[in-house]
């Protein structure tokens, strides 16, 4: 009896830090955000409760356009990261020798060794009108006047893809790694050509990794701030920028909180759709990769 109590106590003590972490750092802030987002400012230091902040969002095309733009560009980044990441992951998992593997993984890690800010400035140095790339093209005689590569959506996408690549590659490598090489050989042996084997065997097998990589990359991209701000051009609005502006420049914490909740809802819905379309479950993808 005593021992049973003791064991229960031990279990509670073991579980406590995790529960505290979830409650204090995830649950409470979100509840606070929801409460804040439902508050309307009617006069200085006077507030009422209601959905005005959400109505504001719906009534102002700038806001939901920015959200849709952020969403679609994040999807594009996710797709590109997958397109580039898949062959790289396949090479690392299936073709590279043990030593090259380590080196390649390390290479993928390099972008994460420096902060977001430094990374963005790196791209700026490279791509600006008087930057490395433009100068090189002029020197090589390919163009005869400086070219501005910076400050447009393409740059934002490149910068984001570069940043999130590792988060796509890691889950892909770990699922592909678990795939028996003979599965691929069997695919060929039974009459499949390269494309069939890729489409019917490798991709379905790697699906959990693909989906979990996409989820992480999409979330990271939609929630990124510095890269789109620093590399983006005059028209490159990003939804996190709107949230920042609401909180910091406009002192409108209520709207900022509402926007934050909306971003969370939006990304959750996109991910839910993605899971439905790919026929995966969250547990399946997270457990497998």
């Amino acid at each position, binding site marked *: 009896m005593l021992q049973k109590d003791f064991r229960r106590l031990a279990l509670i003590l073991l579980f406590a830090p995790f529960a505290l972490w979830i409650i204090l750092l995830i649950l409470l802030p979100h509840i606070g955000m929801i409460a804040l987002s439902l508050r309307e400012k009617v006069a200085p230091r006077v507030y009422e409760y209601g959905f005005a902040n959400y109505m504001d969002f719906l009534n102002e095309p700038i806001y939901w356009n920015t959200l849709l733009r952020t969403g679609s560009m994040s999807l594009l980044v996710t797709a590109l990261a997958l397109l580039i990441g898949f062959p790289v992951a396949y090479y690392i998992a299936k073709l590279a020798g043990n030593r090259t593997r380590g080196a390649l993984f390390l290479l993928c890690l390099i972008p994460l060794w420096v902060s977001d800010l430094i990374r963005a400035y790196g791209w700026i140095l490279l791509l600006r009108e008087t930057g490395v790339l433009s100068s090189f093209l002029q020197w090589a005689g390919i163009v005869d006047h400086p070219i501005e590569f910076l400050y447009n959506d393409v740059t934002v996408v490149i910068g984001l893809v570069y940043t999130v690549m590792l988060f796509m590659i890691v889950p892909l490598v770990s699922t592909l790694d678990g795939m*028996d090489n003979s*599965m691929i050989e*069997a695919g*060929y042996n*039974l*009459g*499949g050509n390269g494309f069939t084997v890729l489409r019917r065997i490798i991709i379905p*097998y790697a699906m959990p990794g693909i989906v979990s990589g996409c989820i992480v990359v999409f979330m990271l991209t939609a929630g990124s701030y510095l890269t789109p701000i620093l590399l983006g051009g005059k028209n490159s609005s990003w939804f996190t920028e709107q949230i920042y502006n609401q909180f910091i420049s406009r002192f409108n914490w209520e709207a900022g909180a509402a926007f934050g909740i909306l971003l969370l809802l939006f990304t959750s819905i996109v991910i839910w759709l993605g899971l439905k379309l790919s026929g995966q479950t969250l547990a399946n993808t997270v457990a497998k990769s």
Partner: protein
Amino acid sequence: MTNTPTYDLECIDIAKSFGAVRAVKGVSFNIPSGSFFSILGPSGCGKTTLMRMIAGFEEPASGDIRIKGRSVLGTPPNKRNVKMVFQHLALFPMMNVFENIAYGLRCNGVKNAEIKAKVHDVLERIALPDVAEREIHQLSGGQKQRIAIARCMVLDPDVLLLDEPLGALDLKLREAMKIELKQLQHQFNTTFIYITHDQSEALVMSDHVAIMNQGLFEQIGTPQELYHHPETAFVAGFVGDSNRWSGKVKASDGSGGTVETDQGLQMVFTAAGGRTIAEGTAVEVFVRPEFIHTVRRTEADGVPGEADNRMDGVVDSLLFNGANSRVLVRSSRGELIEADVTLTGHGDLKPGEEVCLFWSSRQAMCFPSEGSA
């Protein structure tokens, strides 16, 4: 052309190296239609490489591979009508049984209705008519085995390669599957090439067995030939159990004579494989345990006359294994000799008893030692 279509597979002097390692050093063989052919060898002998060359995953450095008389060099694996059952089966876990079997048909562009008929037909033939909709992880080990074979057989291959597919099964199931594989081969009447390092699998199932060692075929023959008439010392040692002595020939008439082992035992032998062995040659002599009679020293007089070799010793221990029980006898010169005995449970030999061992010179197979041949 001398090609006769009676051979499903012909390999002509094929060789393959990986860097400095010569995995396969010039192997030639023909396999007649509809036979069960095994390639038996220790791990690392090159048998997997040989099989991968037949399947098309590796290209031979020299030589030619012909299937139904046509060279397949340069033909990619998906264009060869050679199917393969992999060591761990390589069933596709993301497809159910039906899709696994239908995969190859779909690759060949077979119509849906026909696919359905063919899959059900093949499932019928492997006696698993109801598993089409099951997921792979819901199958037992033996069922998976049969599905892996069905997945290949539904494509009517000229040759089916099997890469130690029984290795992962437990002993009981493995025994059952040996028989089943043989029956399936009969039923489909397709040439099976079975790769294994387990001699009992090879001997039980095969029409012909090739013994492979260090990239070469040592001998090709029926299981009985290999067992009773090995042509090389390696085959004699590798196939079945043997007691083995090294020694020098004292007297020889070419096909037989007397040898003195390194321990000083005089033995009458027969030269194996129709060889002639001259006096003074260093040799190895193999005697299988089942051909050695063990008799208590007190009863040694009533021994059959043809057992022209005799040795005295003391029972060291008994290895009880039912019908396959053995006795270990330590000779007066210190070596241990294995002999089969029948243990009845009454009046059996006991450790410490003095015994005589008898065997016939016809069962003492003698080979020139490696390197001196």
